[in-house]
């Protein structure tokens, strides 16, 4: 006999955003499963926060240039995926662009890091050693803000699955992963975020979106974006929203940065990770996909004046 099942929807302030978990499953495990999922997100936050002086990231930034530092396997796994995406994208994704983000005020300043260089292939300074150890070949400032949120979502999804929950949505400020039942996914219009664009149905996969509507800043008379190219440290183009669908949210999260910088040229990088993207800007919506069925572009609805 099937045990009684119900649905739960909870939200907590974590990862600098509101993290929402919806889950459906057997009554006797549901609440414990959701608690375990949130606990896993808190753990990832503690390990990978740029702000927390006790995180692995802060520890590496303070000490890894002087000696190899042993870190949590979770942090190491994120660094390994970050390196893979950096290599395949020709350095478009790079976890060492933090000094530019600090300069523009997207990240707080840390001791002694203000004058670090942002350069092409800067990620190569980070050496991944055996036994979850890491060493910096040169001084570097690491920031996992472009990938850790997606990883936290993956870990939360795994915690739910380990409790036998198959139907769920974990949404950490737009980095979102869906379980066994298909869910309609919306993205915000990049120029008027009150408009929601239904982009598709998603099941057993993840989607992440990057856009600047809530995060851009005006510096030196022009707006800058929180995504910067390692080469020259230039910001991504403005007023666009980029979403990437992939099996894992960590991959989707990191690939949105690649897609925001490379746009149409990101298609081959996305394909290497079995991912697809959608780019929405003032010209409409375009799919970033090598698949034949999805080469057409379509409008995203009128009624929104670009400021």
């Amino acid at each position, binding site marked *: 006999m099937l045990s009684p099942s119900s649905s739960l*929807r*909870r*939200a*907590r*302030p*974590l990862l*600098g*955003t*509101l993290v929402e978990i919806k889950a459906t499953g057997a009554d006797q495990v549901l*609440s414990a499963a959701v608690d375990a999922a949130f606990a896993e997100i808190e753990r990832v936050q503690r390990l990978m926060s740029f702000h927390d002086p006790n995180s692995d990231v802060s520890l590496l930034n303070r000490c890894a240039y002087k000696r190899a530092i042993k870190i949590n396997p979770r942090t190491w796994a994120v660094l390994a995926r970050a390196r893979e995406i950096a290599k395949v994208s020709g350095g478009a994704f790079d976890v060492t662009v933090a000094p530019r983000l600090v300069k523009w005020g997207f990240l707080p300043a840390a001791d002694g890091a203000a004058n670090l260089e942002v350069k092409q292939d800067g990620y190569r300074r980070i050496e991944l050693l055996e036994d979850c150890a890491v060493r910096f070949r040169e001084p570097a400032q690491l920031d996992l803000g472009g990938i850790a949120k997606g990883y936290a979502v993956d870990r939360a999804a795994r915690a739910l699955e380990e409790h036998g929950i198959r139907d769920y*949505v974990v*949404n950490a*400020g*737009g*980095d*979102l992963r*869906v379980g066994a039942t*298909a869910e*309609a*996914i*919306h*993205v*915000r219009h990049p120029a008027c*975020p*009150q*408009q*929601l*664009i*239904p*982009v*598709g*149905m*998603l*099941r*057993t*996969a993840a*989607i992440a*979106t990057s856009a*600047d*509507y*809530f*995060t851009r800043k005006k510096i030196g008379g022009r707006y800058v974006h929180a995504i910067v190219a390692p080469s020259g440290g230039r910001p991504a183009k403005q007023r666009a*929203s980029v*979403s990437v*669908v992939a*099996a894992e949210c960590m991959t989707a999260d990191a690939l949105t940065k690649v897609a925001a910088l490379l746009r149409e040229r990101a298609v081959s990088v996305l394909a290497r990770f*079995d991912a*697809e993207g*959608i780019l929405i800007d003032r010209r409409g*919506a375009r*799919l970033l996909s090598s*698949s034949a069925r*999805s080469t057409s572009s*379509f*409008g*995203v*609805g*009128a*009624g*929104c004046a670009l400021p």
Partner: protein
Amino acid sequence: MNRYAPWVWLPVAAISTSVYATTYLTVEQAQQTIFPGATLTQAFVTLTDDQKREIERRSGVEVSNKEVRLWKVGSGGYFIVDEVIGKHEFITYAIGLNADGSVKQIEIVVYRESYGYEVRNAAWRRQFVGKTTGDAVRLNQDIRNISGATLSSRHVADGVRRVLATYVVALK
């Protein structure tokens, strides 16, 4: 080839959401979530002008309501319901404090998002007053999965700082 078999890009026009709200919990459910099985007793605390000023000085956050929605927990600790207002969002949240004043858990009770003047408009906000306790607020409750930079949790973080200062100034 599309690896995500159910994934279909839908060429559909945008829908407008000037107001959007999600009720996660009633206050009673939030109490049971944060302090399972505990006995909670409502306490009525009204801050004095001096306390208000001191809380604002310590937290750097304005105290907009001198009535603290507070429950004492039988085993020690407090349960507090508070509200924060951002540019587009109006959030009711519950916070559990351990007996030593540290944060036990935070749960969002109701999240409301609005574009236009409404969030900053006191008359608009008044429609929600008291409604979180019993009936859920019914606005636009369709379940929406929004992928895309959502608003930050900075205002909730500010609210938590204010609650912790309130604990030190008025409850400790």
